[in-house]
């Protein structure tokens, strides 16, 4: 091996009292994050959550098997309410994913240093949420084995091509671009930290682990020339992901807004959907991270002030969503369109009134608690409130989809919607899928962006001009 010089006399005098302090601080961050993946036995609570998640995933696999083998007739969808839980869940999951991109890209561009403690976990959440979301339109087609028809592939069917002017095609492109970008962005951020894991395992002689982590670390050396290009690429990716995240939920909202159905056919949808997406996504980040930061002792990395900041974002976006609800009603009245008016009166007081009031109370009233600093310091309460926000945002998508379809132009077509156990089963399954992946991520990968946290520490600027 290499030979080492103890540069005794030459450097002793250049040393100051602070020697080693900065390095110790960096080492602490590495240890605080890496121990989760290095602990010989997983945490009991982690095992319990993973167990529950696997059971839910099993329910989902069985339900999806039935849906594919029998057809989507096993769902509660009907000719009238032709989009129901499936599309509700799709929009809900995609929206949750958006907070991850917002944290990793938008907060990066706006130089919000606090994002470094949560961006890795939030980006992982994005990927798993988009995976869960993608299942629903795929199953909704009824014949998922023909899903490749949505890709512009030369084929034997008279060279039949997809209809690119359909918002559903826009969805295909937007969601797949979003998933690709999220995965690449996330992986790129992971590489320096995977190199950390590689080197720690190599130092301990865990050769197999070192090799696996090393394979994915791509031989990262942390050289300044590599960092230079890496940082440029990271900045540009953040710049690309920002318009992308806004476009994705806008395109999702076009699925509704470009139709003629009262309650869907409104220009407010793109900003309204994006605000709702950020709202629900931040709630999901807090739902996941508040317990995990306790379990894995990350309180000094994911600090209370970070939770404060996220609560404030939830409050702000919650009020944007509330403004959108009000604007919809105002426009229904102001447009003078009787169908539009009817759609909104029926939304609030029609057969799904309970869903509408669940939505308004969870999305507009519940976040008002975050005005209080006492609430923002009470993590258990925040967690409960965030669960309510998640429920409320699910209901928002359901209200938009089901109430509009159930009461469209023709009274003879009016109908009600009741989910079947397969609707519930597939939804539960995607929650299981999401949690399973998230738990595995938390156990085996660097859950905090170690190198980014180090970069924003005060010690990162230490030792300047001492010579």
């Amino acid at each position: 091996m290499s030979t080492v010089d103890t540069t005794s006399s030459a450097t002793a005098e250049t040393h100051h009292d602070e020697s080693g302090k900065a390095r110790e601080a960096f080492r602490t961050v590495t240890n605080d994050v890496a121990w989760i993946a290095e602990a010989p036995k997983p945490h009991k609570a982690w095992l319990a959550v993973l167990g529950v998640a696997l059971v839910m995933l099993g329910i989902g696999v069985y339900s999806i098997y039935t849906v594919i083998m029998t057809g989507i007739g096993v769902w509660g969808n009907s000719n009238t309410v032709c989009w129901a839980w499936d599309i509700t869940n799709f929009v809900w999951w995609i929206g949750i994913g958006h907070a991850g991109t917002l944290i990793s890209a938008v907060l990066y561009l706006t130089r919000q240093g606090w994002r470094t403690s949560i961006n890795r976990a939030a980006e992982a959440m994005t990927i798993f949420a988009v995976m869960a979301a993608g299942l629903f339109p795929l199953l909704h087609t009824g014949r998922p084995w023909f899903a490749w028809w949505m890709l512009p592939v030369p084929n034997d069917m008279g060279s039949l091509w997809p209809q690119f002017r359909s918002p559903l095609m826009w969805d295909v492109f937007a969601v797949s671009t979003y998933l690709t970008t999220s995965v690449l962005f996330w992986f790129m951020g992971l590489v320096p930290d995977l190199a950390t894991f590689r080197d720690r395992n190599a130092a301990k002689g865990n050769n197999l682990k070192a090799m696996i982590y090393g394979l994915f670390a791509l031989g990262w050396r942390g050289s300044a020339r590599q960092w230079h290009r890496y940082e440029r690429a990271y900045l540009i990716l953040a710049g690309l992901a920002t318009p992308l995240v806004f476009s994705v939920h806008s395109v999702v909202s076009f699925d509704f807004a470009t139709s003629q159905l009262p309650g869907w056919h409104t220009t407010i949808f793109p900003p309204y959907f994006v605000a709702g997406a950020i709202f629900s996504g931040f709630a999901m980040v807090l739902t996941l991270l508040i317990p995990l930061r306790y379990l894995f002792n990350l309180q000094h990395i994911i600090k209370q002030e970070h939770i404060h900041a996220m609560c404030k974002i939830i409050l702000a976006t919650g009020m944007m969503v509330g403004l959108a609800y009000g604007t919809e009603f105002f426009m229904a009245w102001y447009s003078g369109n009787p169908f539009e008016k009817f759609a909104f009166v029926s939304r609030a007081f029609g057969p799904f009134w309970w869903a509408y009031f669940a939505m308004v109370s969870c999305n507009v009233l519940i976040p008002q608690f975050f005005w209080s600093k006492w609430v923002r310091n009470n993590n258990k309460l925040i967690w409960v409130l965030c669960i309510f926000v998640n429920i409320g945002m699910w209901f928002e998508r359901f209200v938009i989809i089901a109430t509009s379809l159930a009461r469209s132009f023709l009274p003879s077509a009016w109908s009600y919607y009741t989910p079947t156990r397969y609707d519930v089963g597939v939804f539960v399954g995607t929650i299981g899928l999401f949690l399973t992946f998230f738990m595995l991520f938390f156990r085996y990968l660097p859950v905090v962006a170690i190198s980014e946290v180090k970069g924003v520490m005060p010690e990162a600027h230490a030792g300047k001009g001492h010579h």
Partner: protein
Amino acid sequence: MSDHGSHGHDDVPAGEGKLFGLLAEYDTPGELVDAARKVRDAGYTDFDCYSPFPVHGIDEAMGIKRTILPLLIFGGGFTGLVGGIALQWYCNAYKWGWNISGKPTWSLPANIPIAFETTILISVLTAFFGMWALNKLPQVWHPFFRSERFGRVTDDAFLIGIESDDKRFDLEGTKQLLIDAGAIAVESCHKDPDLSKAVMPKWLLALIVASTAFALIPLAIAAKARNSKSSEPHYHIFPDMDFQPKFKSDQPNDLFADGRSNRGEIDGTIPRGSLNADDVFYRGLEGGDWTHGFPKTYPDGREFVIDDKLVKRGQNRFNIYCTPCHGYDGNGNGAVPQRVKLNGGAWAARNLVDPKADVIRMPNGQLFNTISNGYNTMMGYGAQIPQSDRWAIVIYVRALERAQNASLDDVPADQRTNMPGGTMGGGK
């Protein structure tokens, strides 16, 4: 192990490979930047700094040129934009035009969302893969990885590595430079002494070969299927969706005595809303014979009032449905007979207003029936014109007959002076 003097640039002592370079550790990021500037000022080029995170100011200290990556990404984005538009144009406007209500096959606004997404997608792919390519990664092995100290770069170490290939490299002099720049430790790094031992584990090689071969199987099956013929029908994965147990309306059906799948109305029943009990209104019959009058009421109970409005309605319907053959005057000289005449034919439409012909003498009910069900070559208009409008046409035809055969006595006295020439052309 402080003595490096014995081996120079190319010495290879026992247990050591060829010298690759020197690694020096610094205490803080700031000291690393200062040291990097000194190394650069000393004229070194084959050196690099290693740190757990991007150190602020190091690019300028080392003299790193700005990467061309942004330009590449711009090129990627532009390719994505043009490619996205071209793809949509080729598929939807050129190769397979969609005719939807006669709208143009190419309209840019509806193609912008996908062009936007492809722009982002290709930019992102260029940024991601371009960055790794410019960084010459993946490179799983590097001589510095042999150093335990280098393993701490991803944790807490701030290192400068100077490679022995540098023109100015001189073991002692370079080491002294690094120490003078504030290093807390300096070590030399060597290449692997015996590269032949550095082979991939056999099981890993076997795994890669096996999985590559395995991955080719579906491709091989697809290639075989595309290049061979089979008399077997397509394989139906879910046959119950392709062949559903149901009858279509024109298929034979053994379940019924008449062998038809399509079932008619049951004898002695009338569909809801099809009773049509009012003989006069629906059929023009009164006591089994054609009525000479008009219905008393509409089916919804309103009184049947013959007024100016109804006559105007009749005129409007007549002008739409009847004039092509019967003409605006009802004299049978519409556009169709005129064209027949032009082509040398002899057919003419019936003259509705000729006092010597029989139409003028038909009862109202028979006229209504003719409009409903047709007469000779005239087809029935019952499917197109509702009963109330048919009655309006009957009234208008009656008005036409009266007008075409009117005399001056039919004009109210106070209107006679308004007549052109004081007389009426039709009053023979």
